[in-house]
């Protein structure tokens, strides 16, 4: 048993606080009530990563909720990270869901703005954005550290009841490739000031630009205050690489990578090779505390990528007393 005063005592927190190079992976819940999809994807990731992100209506497409999918993982013995966007719920629903997630055994939450609904399957929906991601981060931190709701009321069932607050390890996303580029490190600082413990970045292909962003982050000393997990999405084919390069706002794929994918006889193998090389380079960059692997509908390749990158087996850090 450790006597480190963990904030949430999640496995992810313990691994990162111990200074290990952390690994999270993403699991997209299914677009139906077919729970077996979660089971299958979870088995690919079991024991291979420190925690598993469950997306929250990713790209504004209705799926099993991140919290319900997180509970499925808890029951399977894997550690979930639930993603929570600001698009679909107001501050009441968000806080209610944070309490609910905690009692279901969830200990990590990544707070996101959320993709705009025009990209999804309900483009005529009304969006919420009552809070933004930075305000949500601060809300979760105050719930955890101060035991109060956003309104200031203590988190207790009645005046005579104890304060029982959800103790969550708080994450945020950041896109080093969005514009205005000079504002990206400022925005990260705002997230850290709000209470983010870790950051999972948008997927990185342009490592030069990522390094420039990291140097701004380090110049502000942010890497000492927050654990930065660099986001990676392995390319499966030249077609996917082309789509990432042109079809996804805020993602840039360098020409050299496109050329390699185009020339490759086995696109999937080349994509994995590139991903492994990227991990090796990222490990050398100051301030990078780990990776966040978003293998879209390709979770079965996560063990191979991590094995080839030398990131297995995962460290075991015992929980606090």
């Amino acid at each position, binding site marked *: 048993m450790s006597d480190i005063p963990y904030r949430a005592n999640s496995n992810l927190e313990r691994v990162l606080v111990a200074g290990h190079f952390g690994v999270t992976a993403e699991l997209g819940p299914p677009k139906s009530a077919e729970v077996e999809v979660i089971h299958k994807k979870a088995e690919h990731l079991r024991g291979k990563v420190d925690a598993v992100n469950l997306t929250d209506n990713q790209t504004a497409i209705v799926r099993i909720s991140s919290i319900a999918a997180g509970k499925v993982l808890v029951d399977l013995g894997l550690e979930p990270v639930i993603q929570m966007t600001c698009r679909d719920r107001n501050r009441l629903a968000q806080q209610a869901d944070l309490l609910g997630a905690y009692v279901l055994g969830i200990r990590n939450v990544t707070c996101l703005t*959320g993709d705009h609904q025009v990209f999804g399957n309900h483009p005529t929906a009304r969006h919420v*954005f*009552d809070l*933004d991601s*930075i305000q949500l981060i601060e809300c979760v931190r105050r719930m955890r550290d101060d035991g109060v709701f956003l309104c200031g009321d203590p988190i207790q069932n009645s005046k005579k009841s104890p304060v029982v607050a959800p103790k969550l390890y708080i994450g945020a996303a950041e896109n080093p*490739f*969005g514009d205005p580029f000079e504002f990206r490190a400022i925005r990260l600082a705002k997230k850290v000031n709000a209470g983010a413990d870790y950051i999972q970045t948008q997927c990185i292909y342009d490592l030069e630009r990522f390094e420039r962003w990291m140097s701004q982050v380090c110049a502000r000393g942010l890497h000492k205050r927050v654990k930065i997990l660099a986001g990676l999405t392995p390319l499966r084919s030249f077609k996917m690489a082309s789509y990432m390069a042109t079809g996804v*706002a805020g993602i840039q794929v360098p020409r050299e990578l496109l050329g390699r994918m185009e020339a490759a006889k086995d696109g999937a193998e080349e994509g994995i090779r590139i991903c492994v090389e990227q991990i090796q380079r990222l490990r050398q960059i100051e301030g990078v505390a780990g990776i966040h692997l978003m293998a879209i509908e390709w979770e079965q390749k996560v063990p191979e990528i991590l094995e080839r990158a030398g990131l297995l087996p995962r460290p075991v850090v015992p929980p606090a007393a």
Partner: protein
Amino acid sequence: MIVASQKPMDEVLGYLGGAQRVLVLGCGTCVAVCNAGGEREVATLAALLRLGGRQATEETLERQCDAEFFDPVRDQAAGCDAILSLACGVGVQMCARLFPDKPVYPALNTQFMGINEGAGAWSEACLGCGDCKLGLFGGVCPVTQCSKSLCNGPCGGSTEGMCEVDTKTIECGWQRIYDRLQRIGRLDLLETNVAPRDWSKTHDGRPRKITRPDLAG
């Protein structure tokens, strides 16, 4: 000003149904300036209704959001089967309030409070949120100009000055805020975390009213 656009004719005719005598009522202020509901548009719409076999009377008031301007059309209103208002939604509602026994139908879709960008072009600029924060954002409104109304900086979908929602036509409001604050030397304003908004000051609170005792008779 309030910017509006004309409804499809089929929708308008659907509302009118069997009404034969129609008072086509324009508004001479915002919707006249944006060429949607002024005197000329009233004349065109009335002509179309006559072609369809209806009797159409044309009138255009100075403003439909003020009761006092309706006095000259009380007789025409009394003698018609339906009023077709070419005002914004405010004017249509005033009309319905003043003529409680008459069917009143809208001929326009009220779009937004916006800026005239040149001939035939307007863009949304204000949501009337009731708690103006333009002083923090260099005179560019994030509530209106950001597709997600974010107040703590751009999401990850801002690319080369454009918004991911439509990279061809929608500028990223946050790029504009950043550029403006840079020009006036106030980028420091962006370092502060902006607290959650008090939405009770918007329509989320209730339908809003303002009373000014100093102006009340």
